[in-house]
């Protein structure tokens, strides 16, 4: 049980005329090894939620528990927390600053107490995880790379700390199709190694593909929660919450309305394809 939110509320600029309540009494449980997808319209509180999880914001009310311990309690070691929880912000390529890729990836290990050899090993592994070779990339300037490559370097910088829980904020925004596929493969690989992952995204197709569970936020509250199949089952409800359902699910809905019944559980491309194959191949037609 890595993460638990208990009745968490958060208000920006609390106590001033400009106070804005971003989260209202959100409770959430995240299991170890799970991929949790978070959706919601712009301004629904997604960014606030992940910053609370990473300990960057302190809830106005409620508690954030990691392994049953309140991360904002006075005695809690925040540095240790940050080593366990990795957060990749939107457009992480904008946060690169070092002269070489290797130095940039090492940045997060500065206070880790590891020996230089251990650090290098970590950096090498992190770069390889995102598909780069340490020898080829290590000495290059991160600033002269292409946008997609920079983002991978930035992700490697977070991976180097070997977090148990990884949070991504809109990780595929602006990536081209190849970049998107590469990222989703990375998520699957990391998850297979036991990392818990939180994915915040507008992209319903990507979430349907790799999230075990989805959370839909609306105006600072959890409006829907469940597997992709459950959350996307009611297309109208999703629309009211201003989130898209995955394209295969939308297609299934259109087909059902036209008399070709497709179960609501077909939310991924593969799911829909197998339903259609079964229906049209085994259904008497050659």
């Amino acid at each position, binding site marked *: 049980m890595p993460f638990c939110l208990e009745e968490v509320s958060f208000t920006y600029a609390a106590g001033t005329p400009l106070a804005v309540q971003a989260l209202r009494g959100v409770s959430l449980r995240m299991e170890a090894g799970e991929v949790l997808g978070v959706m919601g319209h712009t301004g629904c509180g997604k960014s606030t939620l992940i910053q609370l999880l990473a300990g960057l914001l302190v809830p106005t009310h409620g508690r954030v528990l990691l392994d049953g311990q309140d991360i904002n309690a006075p005695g809690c070691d925040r*540095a240790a927390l*940050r080593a366990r*929880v990795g957060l990749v912000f939107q457009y992480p390529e*904008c946060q690169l600053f070092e002269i070489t890729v290797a130095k940039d990836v090492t940045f997060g290990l500065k206070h880790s107490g590891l020996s230089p050899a251990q650090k290098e090993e970590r950096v090498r592994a992190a770069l390889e995880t995102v598909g780069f070779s340490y020898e080829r990339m290590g000495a290059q300037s991160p600033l002269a790379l292409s946008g997609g490559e920079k983002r991978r370097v930035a992700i490697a910088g977070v991976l180097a700390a070997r977090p148990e829980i990884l949070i991504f904020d809109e990780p595929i925004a602006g990536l081209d199709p190849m970049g998107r596929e590469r990222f989703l493969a990375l998520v699957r690989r990391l998850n297979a190694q036991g990392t818990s992952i939180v994915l915040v995204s507008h992209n319903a197709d990507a979430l349907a593909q790799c999230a075990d569970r989805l959370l839909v936020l609306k105006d600072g509250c959890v409006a829907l929660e469940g597997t992709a199949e459950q959350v996307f089952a009611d297309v109208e409800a999703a629309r009211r919450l201003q989130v898209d359902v995955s394209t295969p699910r939308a297609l299934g809905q259109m087909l059902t309305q036209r008399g070709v019944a497709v179960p609501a559980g077909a939310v991924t491309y593969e799911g829909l394809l197998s339903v259609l194959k079964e229906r049209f191949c085994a259904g008497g037609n050659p």
Partner: protein
Amino acid sequence: MSALPAGQFFPGQSVLHALDARAKLLGFFLLLAGVVCAASLPAYAVAFAAAGALLALSRLPARAVLAPLKRLWLFFVLIFAMNALFYERGDALWSWWIFRLSKAGMAQGANVAARVALMMVLSGVLTGTTAPMEITGALNALFKPLALLGIPAQEIAMILGIAIQFIPTLLEETDTIRKAQIARGARFESRSLWRRAASLPPLVVPIFLSAFRRADDLATAMEARGYRGAANRTHRRARPLRRADWFALALCTGVCALHVVLRVCVAF
């Protein structure tokens, strides 16, 4: 997003809110000049009365306007102490090593502290009743006469306008970068000066990269929209000042003049 620490704009309907920003800015500078002249008890009475009246007229939450004064109490104590202990003229009441406490020094300290406090209240009222946008608009208008001296006033106005426009975006960006680096284990909270200094590059380098990237984008967008310097553009006529604005200006001039008179006539 981090809020402005002071000098925040509060939308409202008071008399001061309704005044033209150019009049407010000019009046503000006149009153500042008056405060700089103040050096006697009657002068301070006038200055504090004026500041109090403005604060009341603005109907701003007085607490918010005066908050920076409270936050900077240490600063005031320091100004006072520096002046009181290092002033070279006047009889010493007490002296030790390089310190030298004198009555004249204490008066000087009180003087400086009162001036700074007054200026802060005045600028608080100005920024509280005037949207940042209007302030730049007014600055631009006041810069116009510089063109007569061969200074490219329109270019400067354009640059200032863009600068204001970028402030909220860059504040937000700075906040994000800071949080991202903290999440990666940067320690900005450290007490040691050396450590804190070492934590600056991860913050400052990306801020500049991002700001310059934005500048690059915007310059391209401006060129695409046909910008080629401020000279070859439609010349917009300025709105004339209304009667209330002139009246306010006259009042401020009056207060300023009164200060000058007091400075000349009343000895401390």
